[in-house]
C-alpha cells in the first residue's frame, strides 16, 4: 500500500478536531431559567478533567469520515511490484561536452573538468550511451554515439575515459553556442531517426566565462526533450587582465604603441604592469609601465618601444593570477629594402635636379631601406641576376629598347614613375600611356607671377590617401610653373589622380598588367614647382614606394584559428609556415590562406620573394573570464536540466510508476463514497440525538 501524495496524510492531524469539539461540548446539557442574568458573566468553555466524551458513536463516525477524506486526498494505491532495480532505469544518451578553450588553461580548471567528466562516466548505467565532444572555437567529436547497425563498443565509458585523458585545452576561443547547437541538433536528429527510447541529455563541463559566444543559440529552436546539465568549474583566484595592441591612428608615431588593458569583472586586483619583451616570461622587468584598471573596466595607454625594445615581439602583462593571456604578440617593424632605379640627366648633388630631392625624400624612411641607383646608358636597364627594382623613375628620353624592357617590367608588376624634364622626355608619356597625347608643340612657360595650383585631387587614391584628412589636404601653397600639357582621349583607361586648376592633368596613373605607370606632368624640382620643397613631397614619395612595395607583412591582431591571407606566391611552389614552436606546416600548392594557427606567437610564412611574418594572438573575448550567468542560456531557449544521481532517477521512475498505478486503481473514489456514506449516517444519528436532547430539554425539571 502506498500513497501518491503522502503529504496529505498530515491532514490526519485534523482528527483531533472532532475529539476537541466533543470534549469542549459548548452546548450545556440543560437549560436553567433564572430570574435575572444581571449578576452573571459568561463562562468560557474549557476542557477540564470532568469533561468526558459522550456520543461516542457520532465521534467515531466523524473521525472515520475525516480519515477517509484524508486518505482519499493522499491518493492511495496498492503496490504490485516490489522495489525497483537499477535495470528498471531507462537508458540515457549522454553527450559529454567538455570545454577545451584557452581559458581552461587557468589554474587547475582542466583537472577539475576531467574529474567532473569522470564522475559523469562513473554514474552511467550499462544501458546508457555516451559520446564525448570537445569544444573551443570549433566542435570536435572525440567519440560519437553508437551508430545504428554498428556493433556496440565494448566498455565505451572506459574508451571515453582514455580519450578524455588525452585531451588538452588548446588556445582557441569559446564558442559555446555553436557547440551546443551542433550537439543538440545531432542528438535530437539521431534520436528521432533511431526511434531511440534512450533519454537524451547534454552535460557541459566548462568555466562558462562571459567571453563565451552564445549568439548561435538565438537562432536555434532548442529541442524540448534535450536537457542541458551545466557543470561549472571555477577557481578561487579569479583576477585576470589582458593587454592588446590597438592599430595606430594616422599621425601617431610608429614607435608609440597604444595598448588596451582589460580587467575581468571578477578580478580582485587593479594594478598591473606592462613591458615589451622578446619572449613571453612574466617576470619583473626594469622600465615596465604600471597601469591601474578597476575590475570590469579597460584602459588605453601608450607603451613606447625603448631603444632596446625595437625588436621585441610581444608585450607582457604582470600582476594578475592567470598568465595564459598575458602576452600579446606583434611583428616587430623590420626595414624593407627597396631598390629604385633613376633614369635622368641631373647630377646627384645638383639642387636643381630631380634626383637630389628624390634621394633626400627616401633617405630617412624608418620603414624602408631605399637604394636609389642611377642607371648608366651603357649598361642594360635590368640585369637578370638582380631582383627587379621596386620602382623606376624616368625623367629623360630613353631608347626604344629600354622602353620595351620597361613595358615588360611594368607588365610583370613593376612601377614606373615618369617625370619628364623636357619636351623630349615628355614624349614618353604617350608612349607608355596610349590614350593621352601632348597638347601643343611648345612647353608653356609660366609668366612671372603666374602659376598653377593643384585643383582637383582624388584623395581616395592610395597616392593621396595620406592627405585625405582635412588637416593635410591643403595643396594651395604648392605652385607649379611648368608642366606638360596633355589632352585625354576618350574613352580612356587612364585615371587622372590630380588636375591643375586649369583642368589639365597633373598626375596620371595607368594600370598595365600587374604593374602601373604613374606620370607627373610637372617636375618637383624648384625650377618646375614648389612640390619638392613642400611637406607633401616625402609622404607622396612614400606612398609611391608603398605602391611599389612587395614585402607587405600581415598586420598583427589575427586570432587563433583565424585564416591569414598570405601574399600571392610567385611560382607554383607550396608555402611552408613555421609556427612559434618551430613546427612547420606545408600548405597545398596555390593555397594562400592559412588557418592552422594553434597557439599564439609569431609565425613565418616562407613566401617568395619575401618571407611573411604574422602575429597570432588569443581572441580578446577569451580573456573575459568573469563567470557567465547561466540564466542567459535559459533565456536563449536552452532547456537547463538538473543533474540527478542514480538514486534520484530511480525515485523519479518509482514516482512515475506509482502515478500510473494509482491512476488505474483509483481507490480514492471508493474512499470518497465511503466518507459520504459515513457522513450521511452521522447526520442521521446526530439529528436523532439532537431531537432527543430537545425532548429532554422541553421536559420540566
Amino acid at each position: 500500500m502506498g500513497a501518491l501524495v503522502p503529504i496529505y496524510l498530515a491532514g490526519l492531524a485534523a482528527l483531533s478536531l472532532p475529539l476537541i469539539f466533543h470534549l469542549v461540548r459548548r452546548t450545556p446539557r440543560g437549560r436553567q431559567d433564572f430570574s435575572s442574568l444581571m449578576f452573571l458573566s459568561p463562562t468560557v468553555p474549557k476542557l477540564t478533567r470532568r469533561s468526558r466524551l459522550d456520543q461516542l458513536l457520532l465521534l467515531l463516525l466523524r473521525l472515520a469520515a475525516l480519515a477517509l477524506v484524508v486518505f482519499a486526498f493522499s491518493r492511495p494505491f496498492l503496490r504490485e511490484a516490489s522495489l525497483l532495480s537499477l535495470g528498471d532505469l531507462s537508458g540515457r544518451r549522454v553527450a559529454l561536452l567538455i570545454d577545451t578553450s584557452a581559458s581552461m588553461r587557468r589554474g587547475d580548471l582542466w583537472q577539475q573538468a576531467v574529474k567532473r567528466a569522470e564522475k559523469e562516466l562513473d554514474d552511467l548505467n550499462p544501458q546508457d550511451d555516451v559520446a564525448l565532444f570537445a569544444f573551443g572555437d570549433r566542435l570536435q567529436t572525440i567519440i560519437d554515439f553508437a551508430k545504428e547497425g554498428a556493433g556496440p563498443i565494448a566498455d565505451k565509458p572506459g574508451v571515453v575515459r582514455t580519450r578524455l585523458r588525452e585531451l588538452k585545452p588548446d588556445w582557441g576561443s569559446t564558442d559555446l553556442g555553436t557547440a551546443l547547437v551542433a550537439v543538440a541538433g545531432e542528438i535530437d536528429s539521431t534520436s528521432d531517426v533511431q526511434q531511440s527510447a534512450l533519454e537524451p541529455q547534454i552535460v557541459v563541463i566548462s568555466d562558462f566565462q562571459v567571453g563565451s559566444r552564445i549568439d548561435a543559440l538565438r537562432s536555434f529552436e532548442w529541442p524540448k526533450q534535450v536537457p542541458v546539465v551545466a557543470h561549472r568549474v571555477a577557481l578561487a583566484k579569479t583576477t585576470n587582465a589582458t593587454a592588446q595592441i590597438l592599430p595606430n591612428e594616422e599621425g601617431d608615431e610608429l614607435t608609440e604603441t597604444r595598448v588596451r588593458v582589460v580587467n575581468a569583472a571578477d578580478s580582485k586586483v587593479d594594478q598591473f604592469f606592462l613591458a615589451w619583451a622578446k619572449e613571453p616570461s612574466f617576470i619583473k622587468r626594469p622600465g615596465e609601465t604600471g597601469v591601474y584598471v578597476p575590475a570590469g573596466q579597460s584602459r588605453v595607454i601608450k607603451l613606447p618601444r625603448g631603444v632596446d625594445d625595437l625588436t621585441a615581439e610581444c608585450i607582457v602583462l604582470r600582476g594578475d593570477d592567470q598568465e595564459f593571456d598575458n602576452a600579446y604578440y606583434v611583428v616587430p617593424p623590420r626595414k624593407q629594402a627597396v631598390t629604385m632605379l633613376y633614369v635622368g640627366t641631373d647630377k646627384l648633388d645638383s639642387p636643381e635636379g630631380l634626383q637630389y630631392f628624390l634621394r633626400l625624400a627616401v633617405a630617412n624612411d624608418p620603414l624602408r631601406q631605399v637604394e636609389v641607383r642611377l642607371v648608366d646608358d651603357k649598361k642594360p636597364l635590368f640585369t637578370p641576376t638582380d631582383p627587379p627594382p621596386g620602382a623606376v623613375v624616368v625623367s629623360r628620353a630613353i631608347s626604344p629598347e629600354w622602353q620595351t624592357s620597361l613595358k615588360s617590367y611594368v607588365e610583370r608588376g613593376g612601377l614606373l614613375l615618369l617625370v619628364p624634364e623636357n619636351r623630349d622626355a615628355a614624349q614618353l608619356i604617350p608612349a607608355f600611356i596610349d590614350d593621352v597625347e601632348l597638347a601643343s608643340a611648345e612647353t608653356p612657360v609660366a609668366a612671372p607671377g603666374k602659376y598653377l595650383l593643384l585643383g582637383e585631387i582624388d584623395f581616395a587614391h592610395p597616392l593621396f590617401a595620406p592627405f585625405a584628412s582635412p588637416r593635410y589636404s591643403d595643396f594651395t601653397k604648392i605652385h607649379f610653373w611648368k608642366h606638360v600639357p596633355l589632352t585625354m582621349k576618350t574613352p580612356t583607361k587612364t585615371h587622372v589622380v590630380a588636375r591643375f586648376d586649369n583642368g589639365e592633368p597633373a598626375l596620371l596613373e595607368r594600370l598595365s598588367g600587374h604593374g602601373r605607370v604613374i606620370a607627373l606632368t610637372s617636375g618637383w624640382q624648384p625650377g618646375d614647382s614648389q612640390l619638392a620643397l613642400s611637406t607633401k613631397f616625402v609622404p607622396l614619395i612614400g606612398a609611391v614606394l608603398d605602391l611599389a612595395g612587395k614585402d607587405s607583412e600581415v598586420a598583427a591582431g589575427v586570432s587563433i584559428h583565424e585564416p591569414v591571407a598570405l601574399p600571392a606566391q610567385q611560382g607554383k611552389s607550396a608555402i611552408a609556415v613555421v609556427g612559434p614552436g618551430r613546427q612547420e606546416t606545408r600548405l597545398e600548392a596555390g593555397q594562400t590562406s592559412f588557418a592552422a594557427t594553434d597557439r599564439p606567437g609569431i609565425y613565418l610564412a616562407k613566401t617568395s620573394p619575401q618571407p611573411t611574418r604574422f602575429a597570432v594572438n588569443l581572441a580578446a573575448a577569451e580573456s573575459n573570464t568573469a563567470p557567465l550567468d547561466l540564466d542567459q542560456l535559459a533565456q536563449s531557449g536552452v532547456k537547463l536540466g538538473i543533474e540527478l544521481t542514480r538514486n534520484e532517477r530511480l525515485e523519479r521512475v518509482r514516482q512515475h510508476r506509482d502515478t500510473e498505478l494509482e491512476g488505474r486503481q483509483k481507490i480514492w473514489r471508493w474512499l470518497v463514497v465511503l466518507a459520504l456514506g459515513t457522513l450521511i449516517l452521522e447526520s442521521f444519528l446526530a439529528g436523532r440525538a439532537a431531537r432527543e436532547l430537545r425532548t429532554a430539554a422541553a421536559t420540566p425539571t
Partner: protein
Amino acid sequence: MSLDRQSPDASKASPGRGARGLQHIDPTALMRIKNLELRAKAVVDGFLSGLHRSPYHGFSVEFTEYRQYSPGDDLRFLDWRLFARSDRYYLKRFEDETNLRCYLLVDLSRSMAFRSAPREYNKAEYAKTVAATIAYFLTLQRDAVGLITFDQAIRDYLPARFRTGHMHRLMMCLEQAPAGTATDLSLPLEQIARTARKRGLVVLLSDLLAPIEMLETKLGYLRSQGHDVVLIRTLDPVEVNFQFQDESLFFDMESGRELYVDPHAVRASYQAKFAAHANELKRICSSHGMDYYELTTDQPLDMALFDLLNARLRRGRPVARRQGAARSSNPGGR
C-alpha cells in the same frame, strides 16, 4: 396599629427561637391553600393567636411620652399618679388614633415567577401571600389598604379604601399570574406620589432585580411627602446563594437572554455582585429612613409578618404622629 412592643431580641428572626417559640406555619403547606384570602386569614389568625395579647386592648388612646409641666399647659393631661409618687408635675402625652392608609406595591414581573427546584411556589406566590396577609391584617384593624401591581407598567391600581368588598377585589387583583418582560420600579412609586395625597404606609414587594439608580430619587420623593416606606425584598434562596451545580444555559426569564454559565466558576462573583446590589439597596433605605426586609421564600410567612410588625413597633409610631419630631429608624431592617 395596636401591637405590643416587643423586645429587640425578638427581631432576630429565626424559626427556632424567634417570636418566643412560636410554631410557625410551613410555607409549603400554606401555599397549598389555593385561596389567597384564606391563606392570609390562616397566617393572621395564627400570628394573632401566637401574640398572646389581644390587639383590641388599649386600642383607642396610646401613650407616647412624659413631658415636664410648664405653666400654661393644659392641666387635664397632668399625670396625677406620678405626681403622687414623685411629687413632680409631668404631662402625659397621647397620640391620636387615626386610620392608616397602606399602599401595597406588588411586583408581578416574570422574574417573580422564578422558583428553585424543591419549592412548589414561586416568589410571586410568596409575595402575593405576604401582601394578602398584610392587607388582611390591616383590614382587621379597619385600616384602608390600596394595591398596585406592576411589571414594566402598572397593571392594576386599587386606591386605599376600607369598605365592604374592597378586600375581595384586592385579593382578585393579586391572583393574577406574573407577566411582563421587565421590571420598572419607578412607575408605581410615581403613581403613589401622584395619587396618595394623605400620608400613609407604602410597602413595596419586589425582588428588586432591576436597575436601582432611580430608586433613591423616587423613594426620597415619597419620603419627603411624609410617606412611610417599607421595602420587602422577596427572593428565592438560590438567588441569594446561587447553589446551582451543573453548568447550564441560563435563560433570563424577563429579557429572554441566554448565557452559558458554569456555576462553580461564577458563584463567587455572583455573590459579590449580589451582595453589592443588596448593600446599595440597604444604603438607600438607611439614608432615607426606610425599612428594608429580605424575605426568602423558604421563610415562614407569619414569621415574616411578625418581623415586619415587630420592627415597626420598635420604631414606635411613625405614622400619624402628632409631633413632627423625627425618629431614628432601624437601618438594618431586620
